[in-house]
């Protein structure tokens, strides 16, 4: 392994381990910092590459934080070709997941022990109404991005009625909508 490649991996691991613990409120919070480091400081990607990769990662299955593995891929590609790129992608993902997941695990252990506490009972009664409001806020933001015209809104409306009224596996509905989209009907 060349020293440049090793250096890149160390930079990737250090950057994303730090961003992992700074991403309070979700991965999107550290996107500006990630952009500045990957594009302006380290020159792993151009700004338009970063934007393209971001939009790809948003619709790909799985957690949206997978954007970091694409940044790691781009960084490794420069120094080590395709094998180097793949390892870079994996290193970036592990570095982004491990610190925050360890923290979440510790909090969960504490939370399990606090099962009968007043705090936990208050949280489980007091937070759900708020959470539902936040999810509705999320659907509004999602719909601004996904529903471009009346046809897409119609699909969203019809799907909502189906999800509420029938017991059909949602995957069949999402899959059907994908097929309709594939043929350019929405």
């Amino acid at each position, binding site marked *: 392994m060349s020293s440049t490649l090793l250096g890149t991996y160390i930079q990737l691991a250090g950057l994303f381990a730090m961003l*992992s613990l700074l991403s*309070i*409120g*979700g991965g999107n919070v550290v996107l500006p910092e990630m952009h500045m480091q990957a594009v302006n400081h380290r020159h792993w990607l151009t700004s338009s590459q970063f934007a393209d990769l971001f939009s*790809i*990662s948003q*619709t*790909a*299955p*799985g*957690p949206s*934080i*997978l954007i970091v*593995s694409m940044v790691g*891929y781009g960084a490794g*590609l420069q120094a080590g070709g395709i094998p180097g*790129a*793949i390892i870079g992608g*994996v290193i970036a*993902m592990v570095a982004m*997941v491990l*610190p*925050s*997941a360890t923290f*979440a*695990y510790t909090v*969960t252990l504490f*939370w*399990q022990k606090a099962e009968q506490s007043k705090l936990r009972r208050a949280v*489980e*009664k*007091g*937070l*759900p*109404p*708020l959470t*539902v*409001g*936040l*999810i*509705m*806020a999320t*659907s*509004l933001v999602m719909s601004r*991005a*996904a529903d471009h015209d009346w046809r*897409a809104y119609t699909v*969203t*409306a019809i799907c*909502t009625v189906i*999800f*509420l009224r029938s017991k059909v596996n*949602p*995957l069949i*509905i*999402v899959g059907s909508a*994908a*097929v309709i*989209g594939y043929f350019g009907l*929405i």
Partner: protein
Amino acid sequence: MSDEQVGRVSLFELALTFNHIALASFGGGLSAWSREVLVVEKGWLGEAEFLSAMTMCRILPGSNQINMAVFAGTKLRGLAGAVAAIVGLCVVPLIIVLTLSFAYFRFKEVPSIKGALHGASAAAVALTVTMVIKTGKTCLTGVIPLLLFAGAFVLNGLLRFPLLGTLAILAPIGLIWAWPREKAASA
């Protein structure tokens, strides 16, 4: 759910379940899929437990979806369960994303599945709206819950107030309202 029931979930089933959640969420709607599978289908988490954990997972550093996997995995099988859930949620999507990265850097574009994702996104929005209606029915049962719900939507959704600011205002109100009183606790 009793502890014996919880103990029967194998690590493989945990990983497989989170893999299923991740792959079902093409086009978005991962939270709605998590609820659909963890609460409705498997019954591993209660509705209130899931909804409160969801907001806590957003406050903690890191991806809220991965934090939710840690929460559910730890509850079911401890540390090994948390690892299994993360592996299930991330490994196959990671392979997919690395493949897409390869295609992007090699051909300067990704295979033309934009239309399909566009359609799936419209349905994923519907799944998330459905989640609001279904969970709303169970927990929006009074004036204060309705105000908390409306406050969170208006601040975070309409005024685009940051998540942490929204929670700093509303969470204390929710907790004070929900704090168990002595009489209620002994009843």
